C-alpha cells in the first residue's frame, strides 16, 4: 500500500505543480494503474493546485480516463466512418452478445473491457478492432472471437506458469 503511494508521488513529481500539467499527470496515472482512483485524484489536484472538481471534471470529460478498474484486456471496436460502412456496429453488437457486456463496460470476471472508439485512423483496414495495443484488420465478430480465445489461452498459460508462486 505505502509502496503504491510512493509511486503515485513519483508520477506527479515528474511535473511542475501547475494546473497545465493536470492532464499529463492523470494520463500517466491512468497508464500506470489502468484507472484513476479517488485517492490519486486527490493527490493530483492537491499537487497541481486545482479544486477537486476540476480534476473530476477533466477525468469525466475526456474519453480515455477511467474511474473504475479496467479489464485485463481492452477491446476497442472502431466506429469511424469507414468501419461503420463496413460493419463495425455489427461487430460491437455481436461482441456485446458474446461477452455479455455492454460497450463501455467490463466483464464481471474483469477479463475484458469493451469499448468503441471514433476512428483510430486506420481506415484502410476497416473494420478495425484494437485489442490492447494490437490493431486487427478486416475484422469480423468471428475472427475477433478467435483472437480473444488466444488471449484466454495466454492467460491460462500465465496462470499455470505462475500458479505455484
Amino acid at each position: 500500500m505505502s509502496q503504491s503511494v510512493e509511486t503515485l508521488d513519483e508520477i506527479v513529481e515528474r511535473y511542475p505543480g501547475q494546473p497545465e500539467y493536470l492532464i499529463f499527470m492523470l494520463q500517466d496515472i491512468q497508464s500506470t494503474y489502468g484507472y484513476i482512483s479517488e485517492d490519486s485524484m486527490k493527490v493530483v489536484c492537491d499537487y497541481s493546485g486545482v479544486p477537486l472538481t476540476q480534476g473530476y471534471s477533466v477525468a469525466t470529460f475526456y474519453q480515455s480516463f477511467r474511474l473504475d478498474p479496467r479489464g485485463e484486456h481492452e477491446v476497442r471496436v472502431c466506429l469511424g466512418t469507414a468501419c461503420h460502412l463496413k460493419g463495425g456496429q455489427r461487430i460491437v453488437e455481436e461482441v456485446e452478445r458474446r461477452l455479455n457486456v455492454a460497450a463501455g463496460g467490463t466483464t464481471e470476471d474483469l477479463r475484458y473491457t469493451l469499448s468503441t472508439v471514433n476512428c483510430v485512423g486506420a481506415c484502410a483496414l476497416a473494420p478495425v478492432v484494437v485489442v490492447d495495443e494490437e490493431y486487427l484488420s478486416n475484422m469480423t465478430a468471428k475472427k475477433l472471437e478467435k483472437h480473444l480465445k488466444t488471449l484466454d489461452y495466454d492467460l491460462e498459460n500465465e496462470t499455470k506458469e505462475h500458479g505455484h508462486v
Partner: protein
Amino acid sequence: MSNVSEALKIEDWRLTSAEDLKALQKQILSGRDPNRPEIVVCHGTGCLANGSEKVSDALRTALADAGIEAKVMPGIKTTGCQGFCSRGPLVLIRPGGLFYQRVKPKDATEIIEKTLLKGEPVKRLLYKDPASGDTILNEQDIPFYKLQERVVLHNIGKIDPTDIADTIAAGGYQALAKALAGMTAEQVVEHIEQSGLRGRGGAGFPTGRKWRSALKAIETKGRPVYVVVNGDEGDPGAFMDRTIMEGDPHAVLEGLILGAYALGAEKGYMYVRAEYPLAIKHLEVAMVQARELGLLGENILNSGFSFDVRINRGAGAFVCGESTALFTSIEGKPGNPRPKYVRSVEEGLWGRPTILNNVETWANIPLIIGKGPDWYKKLGVPHSTGTKVFSLVGKVNNVGLVEVPMGVPVSAIVEDIGGGVPGGQPFKAVQTGGPSGGCIPYSLKDTAVDFDSLTKAGSMMGSGAMIVMDEGDCVVDVGRYFLRFLEEESCGKCLPCRLGLSRMREILDNFSRGRGSEQDIEDLISLAQAVQDGALCALGSSAPNPVLTTLRYFKDEYLAHVNNQTCPAGVCKELITYTIDPGLCTGCTSCARQCPNNCISGRKKEPHTIDTDQCIRCGICRETCKFDAVRVS
C-alpha cells in the same frame, strides 16, 4: 539507437550556421552511394497492422543469412506510410522503385536472393493493374502513384522518420536555415501571404492573413505569443495528419519553428490525439534530435533566436480539434469551447496572441519558404493554391492516402487514382469534410476539389477525408451515423448542440424504422437551421451539414423510408428482411451454425430458410455464405 549519433558523431555537429547545415548534408550524402540498393519497408499504421514489422524483421534476417549486409545500405529502411494501404505490407527496392505488395515474412528470402542478388523481380509480389491487367514493376508507373503529385508527402516513404540524418540528406531544415540567415520575420509572413496558402484543417482560412493578424495583435498586446500545431485529427476516416506526423515529423517541426520565427514566439505546443501513439513517439524523437543538432532550443543556428516546443497528448475528445477547446485543454481543463467573440490570433492560449494551424498547413510552410511563393502558387488553382492530401476510404478499390493539386475533379481522385468502386459500378456519393461536411453525388463528379467549389456544392474540404459510398450505403443511415458521432462528441455546453443533435438523430432513427412524415422532414430542416444558427462552436454549427446535403441530393431516399417504409440501399434493419435463395443455397449449414439467434433451419445439403420473425438482421449469415445465397429485400 538513432543513426545520427553513430554516423555523424553528433557531439561534433552542433550546427551554428546555414553553411554548417549544408556541410552536414554534404557529408551525409557523400557517405552514401546512390546506386546501392536500398530495401524500404512501409511502417505506416496500415502496413504495421498487416504485419510489416515481421516483414522487415524477416528481411533483416534473410539479409544477414545471405551475408551481404554491407552491400545494402543502410540495411533495411523503414518509413512512414507510403499511401497504398489496401496493398500493404509494401516493400520498395531503390533505386528504381521496384514495388512489392502484400509481402509476407516468408517472401523475404526470395526477395533477397532473387531481386537483390540476381536483379530479377519476384513476379507474384508485383502489382497487377485491375483495369488493364498489366503487371507493373515500378512504383512510379502504378496509376495510384502516377496520377498523384506528392509535394507535402514528398519525403514520406523515402526517409526514416526516426533518423534526422535522413531528413537532412533530403534537404530538411534548409528553409529554416535560409530564413534565419537571410530573411526578416516580416519577409517570412509576406512569403506565406503571397503563396495563397489556406488552412488545411477545414475552413480554409488564408494562413498568411492569420499570421498578419497575429502580428497586428502583438503590436498592441506585446509578447509572449504562441504557435500551436493542431494534431487532434478527429474526423472519422481521416488520417492525413497522422501520416505526416508519423512519416515526416521534421517537416511539421520545421514549419512550426519558421512560424515561431515570424512571430517572435519562444514557445510552441503540439496537440496530438492520444489515439496516435506512433505520431507522438516520432515527434518526440524528432524534437530530441533537432535539439541535439541546434535546430531547436536555445539560439537556433547561432541566430540569436530561441524557441522550444512541448507535446500535449490529447485525452480523447473530438471537440478539442476546435481551436478554443484545444486551448482550454492545453491549459489543463475540460475541452469546452470558449464563449467569446475574440479571434485566437488576438486572445488564444493563456489569453495571448496565438497562431494555431493544423499539421498539414505547418508541413507546407518549409516548402513555401524553401522554394518561394511563386513556385508554390503554380500548384493548384488561383484561390486554392498548393496540393491537398486526402485519405480515400470506404467503398473504393485503392484505399489509402493520396495527394493531388487543388482543383482536380472528384472523379480523378475516386476513379482514376482510387480505381473506383469494387464491382465496377459508379459511386453513389463521396462524403468530404467528415461530420462537418457533406456529400457530393455522382452527378457532380466533375466538381473541382478546392475550397470554394466544394462549399458551393454544399460540402466542404474539411481536413481531407474522402469517404466513398456505393449503392449499398443508405443516406439516412450515414446521417444517423454522423449525428450519433457528434452527439457523443459534443461537449454538451450549449443547448442547440446538446439537445438539438439528439433530437435530429431521433428523427432519423424514426425514419430508419419507416416512421415519420414529410412534415418531420420539414421539421428536421428547420431544427437543423436552429442548430446551425444557435450553436456555440463550429462542431455544433456545422453538425447539420451531412443531413442537409443528403436531403438536398437524395431526398427521394428519405421519402422512400418515410412514405413507403423501404430502405432502397438495404441497410436500415427494421425495413429489410433476409431470405435465402433456394436456388443458390447448397445446404452447407454454415449460416445456421453462425446465426446468433438460431433462426436458420434446414437439412444438410438442402436449401435452408430464415425464420424472419426471429431474425435480428445482424447480417452474419450473409457474410458467412460462400454462395451469395442470402438476399436482402
